[in-house]
């Protein structure tokens, strides 16, 4: 009896081990069978009426970082009636599996931002392997040109298009970072417009320049923000900081290094709940980084006043321009919707009121030192 059970046990183990032989091996394709897409560019198509031209920037594998002087990329492009179709065709242009899981920058041609955005961004959100924390950026003159730029400062294993955004390398208030999920969230919401960074290049095509941005809206053409506006957008809404605030009056010209900036605002409503004024309060903290004259520590209050006035003026101009262009990158409309119980006409009330809403901006710049010298 005992022998019989042992025999049965041995047989079962043998059977289970035998099953291993039937396995075909790894279901997962190895890294040498894959090729990593670094960035995707989307341009309008010449061949198709409503189609797109998709360009992929692919990182080529190299032996070791020491032996390769420059990173090497391959570029492939194809046109298709939709983004998905073009990428499917591109899969037949390479011998390996296109891996989009490490793709981190989506570059879109400026002209496409107006109408088709929702249509082709769908592909990126729907695919599970594409990260929702991928960066999205607008491109000028075209996405393909921008992707093909290989900046001379680019080192192997560090992609310039990744380093520019997300504060992982450079932190500058001129560079707006928009993630894919943010773009989707704000683009589909009522009462806020999303802002994308605008990537440009120089004549030699060896630099990537990002200091403008684009406000996009579902209803109208995109609005380009200038350098100063981009800076104010970034520092007011996202609290970005840096050496960038030029302030001047009659005799004195100083550059502020702001280390902390914060904006808070309140929407003042009239009796029938329509918005009347938006009271905006800006708080900044920092030091003076550059000056054309001798500064005095005892006069810090004076400099504060001067800087506050300047910030106030610039910010007011920025808000006013956004109002004239009837876009709302700060999400005032969203805030208005959220400060009252939901009514079905709340969006209409806001849309009617926004063009005439008044802005009251107060700024409070608090300078702590004049830098290392007076």
């Amino acid at each position, binding site marked *: 009896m005992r022998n019989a059970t042992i025999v049965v046990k041995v047989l079962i183990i043998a059977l289970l081990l035998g099953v291993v032989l039937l396995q075909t091996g790894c*279901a*997962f*394709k190895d890294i040498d069978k894959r090729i990593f897409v670094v960035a995707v560019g989307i341009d309008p198509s010449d061949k198709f009426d409503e189609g797109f031209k998709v360009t992929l920037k692919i990182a080529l594998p190299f032996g070791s970082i020491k032996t390769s002087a420059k990173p090497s990329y391959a570029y492939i492009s194809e046109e298709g009636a939709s983004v998905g179709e073009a990428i499917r065709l591109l899969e037949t242009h390479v011998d390996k599996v296109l891996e989009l899981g490490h793709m981190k920058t989506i570059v879109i041609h400026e002209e496409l931002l107006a109408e088709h955005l929702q249509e082709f961004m769908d592909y990126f959100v729907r695919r*599970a*392997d594409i*990260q*929702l*924390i991928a960066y999205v950026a607008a491109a000028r003159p075209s996405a393909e040109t921008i992707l093909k730029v290989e900046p001379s400062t680019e080192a192997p294993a560090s992609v310039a298009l990744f380093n520019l955004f*997300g*504060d*992982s390398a450079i932190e500058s208030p001129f560079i707006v970072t928009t*993630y894919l*999920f*943010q773009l*989707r*969230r*704000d683009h*589909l*919401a*009522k009462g806020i417009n999303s802002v994308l960074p605008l990537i440009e290049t120089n004549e030699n095509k060896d630099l990537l320049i990002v200091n403008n941005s684009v406000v996009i809206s579902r209803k109208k053409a995109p609005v380009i923000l200038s350098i100063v506006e981009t800076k104010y957008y970034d520092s007011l809404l*996202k609290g970005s900081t840096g050496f960038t605030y030029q302030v001047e009056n009659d005799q004195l010209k100083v550059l502020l290094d702001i280390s902390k900036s914060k904006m808070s605002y309140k929407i003042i409503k009239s009796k029938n709940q329509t918005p009347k004024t938006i009271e905006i309060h800006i708080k900044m903290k920092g030091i003076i980084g550059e000056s054309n004259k001798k500064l005095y520590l005892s006069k810090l209050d004076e400099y504060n006043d001067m800087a506050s006035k300047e910030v106030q003026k610039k910010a007011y101009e920025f808000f006013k321009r956004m109002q004239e262009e009837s876009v709302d990158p700060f*999400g005032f409309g*969203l*805030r208005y*919707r*959220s*400060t*009252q*119980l*939901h009514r079905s006409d709340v969006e209409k009330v806001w849309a009617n009121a926004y063009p005439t809403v008044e802005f009251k901006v107060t700024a409070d710049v608090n300078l702590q030192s004049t830098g290392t010298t007076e």
Partner: protein
Amino acid sequence: MSRFVYYLLISNMVANMIAAGPRILFSKSEQGAIVSMIIALFFGVFINWALIKFFNAFSGESLPEILDLYVKRWISIPILVVLGSIWYIAGLQTLITYVDLLLRFLAPEMSVYTTLSMFIVVISFGVIMKSRSILFTLELVFVMLLPFAIYYVIKLYFSPQISWDYVRLAMSFIDNPPNYTVFSTTLFFFIGTFDIIVFNSLLKKKMIFGLKEATFVFLLGAFTIFTTYFIPIGVLGFDRIKDFIYPWIFTSDSIRMKFGVIERVVFIFLLIFLAVAFLSIMIHWHVSFKLFENVFRLKKSMTNKGKTIRTCILLVAFWVVAFFITVRVTEYDLFTYSSYYFNLMSVVIVGLLSLLWMLNRRAKS
């Protein structure tokens, strides 16, 4: 309350955070989700209180044992069958969701059968374990995962990408009349404690459910519900939140660790929640298994061989049903049937509580 009861409660809450629950909540976000959630929160604490109070009279006895003592066999069999199937479906629902998630995010090239078999083999082993070992497994996994889970939740709340304006916007729908489906879906967060209908045989000490325990359960529930509902809205926006199939996966895919070991938090998240889901399925099926075991009991004393055969038959039945349903179900079915299931569940819970109340009175007289 014994600490194990809290583990049961928490594991159920966490496993439901990413299963079918959130989508059902969001689908009614403009039709009274918030009021229903608040009502369910209070009712959830109440059912926990009632359960512990009723079980106080029978410390150290599981529901099948109590039924044996006070009720005739022909009454107890249908009760056990209904409860057994309800608990089986609770596990199955989580199982289907996770197989789905694994196939979509972690191993897209694997066949559904392989994934499912891997799950089922491990879970079956858990199902036939002793109840005591299950509780210890539960504790072990909690101790190991809790630091990561806390880190993850803190990361969520302090993520600069959350826009609290959307959260406020969602709250502006507070004045809508309540909705039953949302109520029962939220109530499902609280039924983890009900696993003690089987585990009570191990909890010999008398349990107290006083103000302190009630407050704790209330806070725990409030925090879980708030996180489940409002954090995805803050990250993904309010106006089109209904479109997401698994809002929580997208939420964690939107959280970034700038200088972390990996930048995409979603993989850490999936692993933590996968472990908790394993536990949750295992517990639900274990409870279901024990209940069914008491249904198919021919005589008071069964031989060992008979018991082994019964275990095998039950396990095979579990597998067959799981395979059959998981392979067939589409996502649409999953959410429709899940909402039916939640609706039914809250009725069953009330029924179970009244049954316990009656048994309590019998025991006293």
